[in-house]
């Protein structure tokens, strides 16, 4: 630096990240980001985590963001480095996760010449970003990074890509902290329309069978307290989407569990029979609604609260739309309801009916006849051993659905899972990011033997930085969810879903320098989990679970959510959840 304010673009990136409060970033070096890595070499308040594959960097940043509520940051070089981020960017986009991805780009004068490691990254990522920048000059770096953080974290959160040519990293600029984002076309609506809020309050007090259907928007807005206060004040039961798990304490009587394809019987029946559906921070996704024309058929009114106006009316036309941040709108709704006269016991009969369904249709599973471990039991043991206080991260597939069903989530950001994109390989790197963001929490990554193998190289990252995540592999030797569909709908033709050759996961973990364990009987599950957590080391536990167990209840794709398979068998063991 020639003077305190003169610096290179690369140094301005570091200074800007620090100014935004970023303390951790996940990355992997390469040719055009050498200047940036040189600047990071001197960074004091910025922790760089070297992953083993760029996909690990973006998922770890995503997991960090989900666990903390802060913006996750990842860094990759041009070309293959940047394209390796694409899956993770799409994942963050579908789940509305605040993420800033910084990618190196070839020299500005070489852009468009098919230069070495050149890829049109802003072009490739265009459909899967909230916004993106191709930096034109070093001077604009502080403003661009400031805007990127603002865009990623406000309104409906999402990923922002900043593509920086190496020439901009090397050029000098005079660093000034931006005086704010200058975005003429970006002003998210925060507060809900007063008249609409009033109309919603009236509808709630008129309803006899209301249901709150809440999703990730409640988590990202930090609206769990307002939600609970509202639900309790007007005695409205709550069902959550996969992204909304943790928005309500599932041990509470008003909680119905998750709805949709693998939702609880009670939640799906409740939505089917409700006379008022109150959607908050949800998008009426096909995995939730099933056959759209048969969704909530008795609802006389649908209230839809969402920060993104484009979600309102996209799949379902609400009678009372409210655009705004879930926390502000729920608080306003609560204030409105507190002022009004509320007839007592209005929903009592409805709640009683729901309690009846909970008793009649509890979750259930049977102990495997072959003496292996029931996968559902592992999830129950995770809850028991951790006292229900652990952060649960998952991969994608059957183990993910069992994790939604057999653990009672209690607080926001406790549940971290790839919802919209359904990205296998998300679990381990996301768990590393989550643990780095929440070192005070036990972090368990529930994974499958299929998904774990997609990003298992990140065990090295966990060992490198001593990030003590516990990976619980529910190993059934199958790509279980696809096998389940083949079982139920494709005449048991298990085409390429049996993983015939597998590594020894415990030995593999040891090879990485992590702790490796294997469990093949139910009696050992709890002790193994306890030992893994107490070890304070990254640990992989290979649970040999029943090979052909299916996830139930299940609504076949495209059918009404009341058309459930396996929801009504009598209760045998386990599964206290509704």
């Amino acid at each position: 630096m020639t003077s305190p304010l003169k610096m290179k673009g690369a140094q301005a990136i570091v200074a800007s990240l620090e100014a935004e409060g970023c303390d951790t970033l996940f990355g992997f070096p390469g040719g055009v980001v050498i200047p940036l890595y040189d600047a990071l070499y001197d960074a004091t308040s910025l922790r760089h985590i070297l992953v083993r594959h760029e996909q690990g960097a973006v998922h770890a940043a995503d997991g960090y963001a989900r666990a903390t509520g802060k913006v996750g940051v990842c860094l990759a070089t041009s070309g293959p480095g940047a394209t390796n981020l694409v899956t993770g960017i799409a994942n963050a986009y579908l789940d509305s996760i605040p993420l800033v991805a910084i990618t190196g780009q070839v020299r500005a004068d070489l852009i468009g010449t098919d230069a070495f490691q050149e890829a049109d990254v802003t072009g490739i990522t265009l459909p899967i970003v909230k916004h993106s920048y191709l930096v034109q000059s070093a001077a604009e770096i502080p403003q661009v990074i400031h805007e990127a953080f603002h865009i990623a974290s406000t309104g409906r959160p999402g990923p922002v890509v900043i593509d920086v040519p190496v020439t901009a990293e090397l050029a000098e600029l005079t660093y000034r902290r931006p005086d704010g984002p200058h975005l003429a076309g970006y002003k998210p609506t925060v507060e809900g329309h007063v008249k609409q809020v009033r109309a919603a309050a009236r509808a709630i007090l008129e309803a006899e069978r209301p249901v709150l259907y809440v999703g990730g928007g409640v988590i990202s807005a930090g609206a769990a307290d307002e939600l609970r206060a509202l639900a309790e004040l007007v005695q409205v039961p709550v069902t959550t989407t996969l992204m909304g798990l943790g928005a309500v304490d599932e041990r509470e009587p008003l909680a119905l569990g998750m709805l949709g394809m693998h939702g609880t019987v009670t939640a799906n029946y409740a939505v089917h029979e409700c006379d008022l559906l109150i959607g908050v921070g949800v998008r009426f996704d096909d995995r939730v609604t099933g056959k759209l024309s048969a969704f909530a058929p008795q609802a006389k009114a649908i209230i839809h609260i969402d920060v993104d106006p484009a979600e309102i009316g996209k799949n379902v036309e609400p009678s009372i739309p409210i655009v705004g941040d879930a926390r502000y709108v729920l608080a306003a709704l609560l204030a409105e309801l507190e002022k009004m006269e509320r007839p007592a016991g209005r929903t009592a009969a409805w709640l009683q009916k729901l309690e009846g369904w909970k008793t009649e249709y509890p979750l259930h599973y049977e102990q495997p006849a072959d003496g292996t471990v029931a996968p559902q039991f592992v999830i129950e043991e995770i809850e028991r051993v951790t006292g229900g206080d652990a952060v649960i991260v998952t991969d994608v597939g059957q183990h993910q659905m069992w994790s939604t069903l057999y653990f009672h989530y209690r607080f926001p950001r406790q549940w971290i899972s790839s919802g919209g994109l359904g990205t296998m390989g998300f679990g381990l790197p996301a768990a590393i990011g989550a643990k780095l963001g929440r070192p005070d929490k036990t972090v368990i990554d529930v994974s499958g033997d299929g998904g774990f193998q997609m990003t298992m190289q990140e065990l090295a990252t966990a060992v490198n930085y001593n990030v003590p995540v516990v990976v619980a592999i529910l190993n059934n030797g199958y790509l279980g969810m696809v096998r389940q569909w083949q079982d139920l709908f494709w005449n048991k033709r298990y085409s390429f879903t049996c993983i015939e050759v597998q590594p020894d996961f415990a030995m593999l973990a040891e090879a990485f320098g992590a702790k490796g364990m294997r469990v093949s009987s139910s009696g050992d599950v709890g002790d193994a989990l306890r030992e893994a957590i107490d070890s304070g080391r990254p640990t992989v536990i290979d649970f040999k679970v029943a090979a052909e167990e299916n996830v139930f209840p299940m609504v076949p794709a495209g059918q009404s959510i009341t058309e459930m398979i396996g929801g009504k068998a009598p209760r045998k063991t386990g599964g206290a959840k509704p």
Partner: protein
Amino acid sequence: MKHTLSVLVENKPGVLTRVAGLFARRGFNIESLAVGESEDPRLSRMTITIDGAEHPIDQVTKQLHKLINVVKIRDLDPQHTVTAELMLIKVAAEGDKRTDVLQIAEIFKAKIVDVERRSLMLRVVGAGDKLEALLELLQPIGVLEVTRTGMIAIGRGRG
């Protein structure tokens, strides 16, 4: 019903790609799109025509609004909108046909902007239906080449 959207966007690289990409991936068909600098050099104005029967116009405008570079969108009311489109037409015009072309051009207030031995080039400005009518008349004579700018539009009165 056909909708004409007047979309004010930031005059920055890549904005047209963002708008076009959005229409493509959401499956909205653009009938025409014209773009150029507005009264403020930092902003460009796009005029987009789209079939509202085919796509819910509400969803189109909401999705457009989500683009950070989109500053303002107006769904123009056809009753209070002036529209125009520019078209260049090259017509085969030898012998007797030349007079026919010149007469038609006169009626449509089209300018002859290029004269060759075997062809004439016409330049005409007007609303879409006028351009269609002109083309229809010239077709039997022999239209060689046509290029159109796409419609541009602006609301009447202030604001």
